[in-house]
């Protein structure tokens, strides 16, 4: 008896034949309201999105990736409000700080052996003259020079004098202010050669990269989905012509054209920006000409993959009965595409858009690295890496930090996109 109830939980109304002979009149009693309600809640249907969310939540890798993305979003969008430095603010006296510092006394000791050679020589001469009481002769001067200029093994010296570096960068001035009781926000990753705080620049750079990725992906989505659905839905000659265009764009070496576009459009956009103070001019000014040319490149070249995917889906879907039904009811082509076809390929659309974001970020960093991306004073992770290249031997971390953030961002977006694909369309799972 108990067993049979357990069976019915899975929704089977097929009677278990073995149990049929053991039926008692009780089994034929009408179900109570409580039982009915229990039955309904047991068999509640899950929607497509709920089902996908459940699968996504089970995917540990994707969830970790999502956590990383959320952390990066907070870092990029909330971070700049917490740090009191501006991304283009020159902090005088705080140039080229390392992400570590020495206390004031230690720094003074260090300066005495490894500071500016001329200053140290002048100080040494002054001190020797004071001791001697008269001016130094040539021989004494030469020996003093040799002593001062003698190379000291800094690491050994630090060990001997028990000097340890401390976390975060502070300039001398800032250390003095701390000593005076002021609280000074540290330069967590140091500063660059113009005295700009590297952490704030990283935050803003991450923000720029993310925004570009998202905007480019939405642009690609808009153009690709429209083009692909029209091509797939109308088929025949329209499809043939439209797909020839797609093939043509596929064959164009995109990187060449993107490079060319970003260089070519820049002066035109700068002219346009200076031509007046309307809404569009303001928009160009806010985004920077290089960013716009990048979007133009995306709009021109990168939608073809999306268009192909949507077209394939639409070709399959348009043969199905619900489209025929809609046509029979007199729905226009636009309505069928918008209301019936596109919502049915939403899984594919979401996944492709999501995977487009990292590739846009990839391209942006690439262009910024070549010097045709985001223009100064705006910054991006790619241009920061490019700037760091000149001082790579001394300040290697300036290259490593943006590079790591960029890689982690692309990595987690890729992993999350893969997870999303597995969740939304389990058939595609590899």
């Amino acid at each position, binding site marked *: 008896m108990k067993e049979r109830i357990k069976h019915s939980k899975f929704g089977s109304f097929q009677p278990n034949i073995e149990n049929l002979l053991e039926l008692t009149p009780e089994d034929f009693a009408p179900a109570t309201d409580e039982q009915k309600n229990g039955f309904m809640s047991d068999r509640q249907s899950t929607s497509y999105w709920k089902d996908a969310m459940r699968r996504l939540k089970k995917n540990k890798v994707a969830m970790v990736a999502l956590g990383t993305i959320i952390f990066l979003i907070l870092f990029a969008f909330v971070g700049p409000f917490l740090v009191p430095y501006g991304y283009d603010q020159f902090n005088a006296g705080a140039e080229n700080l390392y992400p570590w510092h020495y206390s004031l006394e230690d720094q003074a000791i260090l300066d005495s052996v490894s500071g500016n050679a001329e200053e140290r020589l002048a100080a040494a001469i002054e001190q020797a003259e004071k001791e001697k009481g008269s001016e130094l002769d040539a021989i004494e001067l030469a020996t003093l020079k040799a002593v001062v200029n003698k190379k000291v093994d800094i690491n050994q010296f630090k060990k001997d004098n028990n000097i340890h570096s401390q976390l975060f960068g502070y300039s001398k001035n800032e250390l003095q202010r701390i000593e005076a009781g002021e609280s000074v926000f540290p330069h967590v990753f140091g500063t660059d050669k113009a005295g700009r705080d590297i952490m704030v620049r990283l935050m803003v750079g991450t923000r720029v990269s993310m925004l570009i990725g998202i905007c480019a992906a939405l642009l690609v989505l808009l153009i690709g989905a429209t083009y692909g659905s029209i091509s797939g839905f109308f088929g025949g000659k329209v499809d043939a012509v439209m797909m020839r265009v797609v093939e043509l764009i596929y064959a164009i070496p995109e990187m060449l054209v993107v490079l*060319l576009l970003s260089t*070519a459009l820049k002066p035109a956009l700068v002219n346009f920006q200076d031509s007046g103070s309307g809404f569009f001019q303001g928009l160009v000014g806010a985004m920077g000409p290089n960013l716009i040319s990048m979007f133009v490149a995306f709009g021109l070249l990168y939608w073809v993959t999306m268009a192909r995917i949507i077209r394939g889906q639409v070709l399959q879907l348009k043969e199905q009965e619900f489209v025929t039904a809609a046509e029979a009811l007199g729905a226009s082509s636009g309505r069928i595409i918008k209301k019936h076809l596109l919502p049915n390929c939403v899984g594919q659309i979401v996944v492709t858009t999501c995977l487009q974001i990292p590739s846009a970020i990839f391209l942006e*960093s690439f262009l910024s*690295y070549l010097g045709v991306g985001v223009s100064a004073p705006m910054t991006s992770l790619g241009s920061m890496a490019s700037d760091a290249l000149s001082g*790579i031997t001394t300040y290697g971390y300036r*290259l490593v930090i943006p590079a790591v953030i960029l890689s982690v961002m692309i990595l987690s977006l890729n992993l999350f996109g893969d997870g999303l694909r597995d969740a939304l369309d389990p058939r595609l799972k590899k």
Partner: protein
Amino acid sequence: MAKYSLKRLGMALITLLVVASLTFLLMSAVPGGPWQSEKPLSPAQVQVLNEKYGLNKPVLTQLGIYLGNFVQGDMGVSFKMQKNRPVVDIIMEMFPISASIGFFSLLWAILLGVPLGCIAAYKRGSWVDSLLRIICTLGVSMPSFVIASLLITTFAGSNEALRIFPTIFDSALGVKAYILPCFALGLYPMCYTARQARSSMLDALGQDYIKTARAKGLKTPKIIFKHALRNALIPVITYLGPQIAFVFCGGFVVEKVFSIPGLGRYFVQSIQARDYPIIMGTTIFLAAFIILMNFLVDLLYNVVDPRIKLDGGK
């Protein structure tokens, strides 16, 4: 086959024409010209220069003249970068350098990527598979300039013990000069190939003919390399065309980091210097090269998998 090749050739020519016209029009639409420099020239001088290089004619006429000359094998002379040297000469000098680096990068990427993918597929679910998966996902997530600059800081940086390789590319050094750039350029294709090979190998291993082969009593290596690999290679080859394009375009960055005097770096420089004939020449040349490679890859399909019909199966 012949019909297909002809069709593709026509398509390729149209693409080239589009690329050429697009490039030309874009270049001409930019205000200012190649004569802008730190020392401004007088209007009279600019006029003489424009006259000499035919820049005073309408843009469409210029394009027509350029295309006419191009068909006859004349790609013009450089305006600025290497004054009055024929563009053909410049390309012929620089392309071999880029091509050799691209070739070796792709070579190691495929020679290593395909077997790694096969191993991962065969050992599916084991730690080997997981490790390869992590490495490959990392590899496709790092832009080539990141890899290149990390390599250069590590192996050509301030640390004396690790300073094995030169910072600046010098072909006189032989193999040593090629190792870092080829590694940086080939890592992405390698990881991508391995991922692709793994998934298509898994697909192939699940097919019925593999069961038949097993039932016949064949040894595992023979099943993998004789029966499964050939079918698993198709998606890998499909991506070979775009990969060639990537290696040549990713070359821009790697060439910049390692100061390689290749075509990619020169192209970027010529855009910045507005040396029109060099921009046109390199664009058309690289585009033609990429299109040709895509075509060859398509023909290669047919060899590897005779089931694929190029003519559209009519």
